[in-house]
């Protein structure tokens, strides 16, 4: 199936709307669509989250496994990311159509999360230094593609990592430099990932005409020639900048876009984190009182 096309008339309509700060669905240039975020929906995963941003739907499942350490980082655990666009998400994804997009999204997510800029404490993920460590496998699945995929994926990944619990391990020293460890089965004892609060958020700005917008729909994405993805953490530091699209941008506009993205990310991170903490507190309260925890259900997010 061919990539979606857009007519010149429609393109001009969208460009004029962006120019006057009133887009086709009535939003301003820097407004997000309706966001539904839910954590802890997959029982077999160590952590999971699902996010519906407008009509874009992303599900992230996290499994923590025990693996061998990497030779160049013998005292640290590691993170491995994978993004897959389900062939049902869009007409252009059938067969191998999604391969390029999967690769781009996977590497972009890896660039944001692997390394010191992710803020995660990888030393704590090491079980036996020089031998075994926890490997966090992050698998994101795009179930519905309706624009602004990468931001949606990063939001969901952050929520899923918030929800992830790593089982406790008990290490026994057998002497002679030999160690053995046991993984505790108790769900209550599992710990959250250290350094989670420092995870960066991504803000992608799409340039249309001479202005830039946030969170485009599919048609608006087709009108934009340049996209700029900026990763920002809660202290306002830039954790990655990546340009996409086949156009070019003036240097002063580029600097302005980086500044705007950094400014926008702060309140976004704060509000999301507050909501996640609130949801967790409610769930724990209900569990303590012995009340059943009501899940939203897979279709509840579709409005």
């Amino acid at each position, binding site marked *: 199936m061919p990539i979606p096309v857009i007519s010149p008339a429609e393109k001009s309509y969208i460009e004029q709307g962006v120019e006057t700060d009133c887009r086709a669905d009535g939003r301003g240039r820097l407004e997000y669509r309706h966001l539904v975020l839910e954590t802890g929906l997959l029982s077999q995963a160590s952590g999971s989250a699902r996010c519906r941003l407008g009509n874009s739907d992303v599900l992230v499942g996290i499994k923590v496994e025990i693996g061998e350490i990497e030779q160049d980082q013998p005292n640290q655990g590691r993170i491995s990311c994978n993004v897959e666009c389900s062939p049902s998400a869009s007409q252009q994804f059938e067969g191998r159509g999604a391969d390029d997009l999967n690769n781009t999204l996977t590497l972009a997510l890896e660039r944001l999360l692997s390394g010191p800029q992710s803020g995660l404490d990888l030393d704590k993920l090491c079980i036996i230094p020089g031998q075994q460590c926890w490997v966090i496998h992050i698998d994101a699945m795009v179930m519905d593609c309706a624009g602004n995929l990468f931001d949606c994926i990063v939001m969901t990944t952050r929520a899923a990592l918030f929800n992830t619990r790593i089982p406790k391990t008990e290490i026994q020293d057998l002497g002679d430099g030999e160690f053995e460890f046991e993984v505790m089965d108790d769900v209550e004892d599992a710990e959250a990932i250290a350094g989670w609060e420092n995870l960066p958020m991504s803000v992608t700005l799409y340039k249309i005409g001479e202005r830039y917008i946030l969170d485009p729909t599919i048609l608006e994405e087709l009108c934009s020639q340049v996209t700029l993805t900026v990763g920002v953490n809660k202290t306002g530091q830039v954790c990655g900048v990546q340009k996409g699209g086949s156009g070019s941008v003036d240097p002063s506009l580029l*600097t302005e876009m980086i500044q705007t993205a950094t400014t926008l990310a702060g309140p976004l991170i704060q509000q999301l984190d507050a909501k996640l903490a609130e949801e967790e507190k409610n769930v724990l309260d209900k569990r303590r009182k012995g009340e059943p925890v009501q899940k939203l259900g897979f279709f509840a997010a579709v409005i």
Partner: protein
Amino acid sequence: MDRKRVNGPELSVPPIFKKSMDVEPTVLVNQNKKRADQRGLDDIRPIYLKTGLVTQANGSAYIEIGNTKAVCAVYGPRQLKKAGFSRNGTLNCEFKFSTFSCTKRRNNMRDPQEKEFSQILVQALAPAVRLELLPKSAIDVYVNILENDGTSSCLSAAIIASSVALADAGIEMWDQVTACSAVLSEDQVLMDGTEDEEKRQTGAIILSYMPSLNEVTHILQSGKSETALTTQAVEQCIDGCSKISSVMATALLQSLDKSSGL
């Protein structure tokens, strides 16, 4: 599974030399503001750039930035492999590290990082090439990295070589595309980092730029840094790019002299 080749063991690791473990790491920037190879913070490594290396290609270029070596060959405009009409030409780029180019041996097949770099090449070069003049045609750009002394510098070498090779092939362009990379530390921007410097710093940035049109065609920053430092790095990279564009122009003029001075 790679069935075309006789594969070695699935996992093999490079040896760890005892001497390198005992040696103290050299200071990146010493008191006189000089780096390990006596460059200043703002100095880029010397560049050698020449066209015409690959005789079978429509255009080609060979570039050395310090120890980083890259070859680019351009074939085109030529017929699209798939039948069908496309109003604008297609730019296909293939980026490959030679298996012996990096510290750890690279695979023969293209891995995800090389696929991403290929896409980055397309994004960096497409704004400059006049594809609307070449309907139903494809331009193929093949870049091979022979020696890797800094991954960001490999990418910028690839972009510079590709731009010069495209011009050497006689393909009409709006402007040359120059590229420059830098390494970011807590509060300093080190232009054109080597592999050693890249491994030990908190971030790297690479920027490609069209000097006459004053437009940035690609930016890629990894690692963590303050917004002000990123902005400063962007400005310094643009300055570096302007310096490099004169080197590219000289190389192209030399190739003209060579062909006309027969």
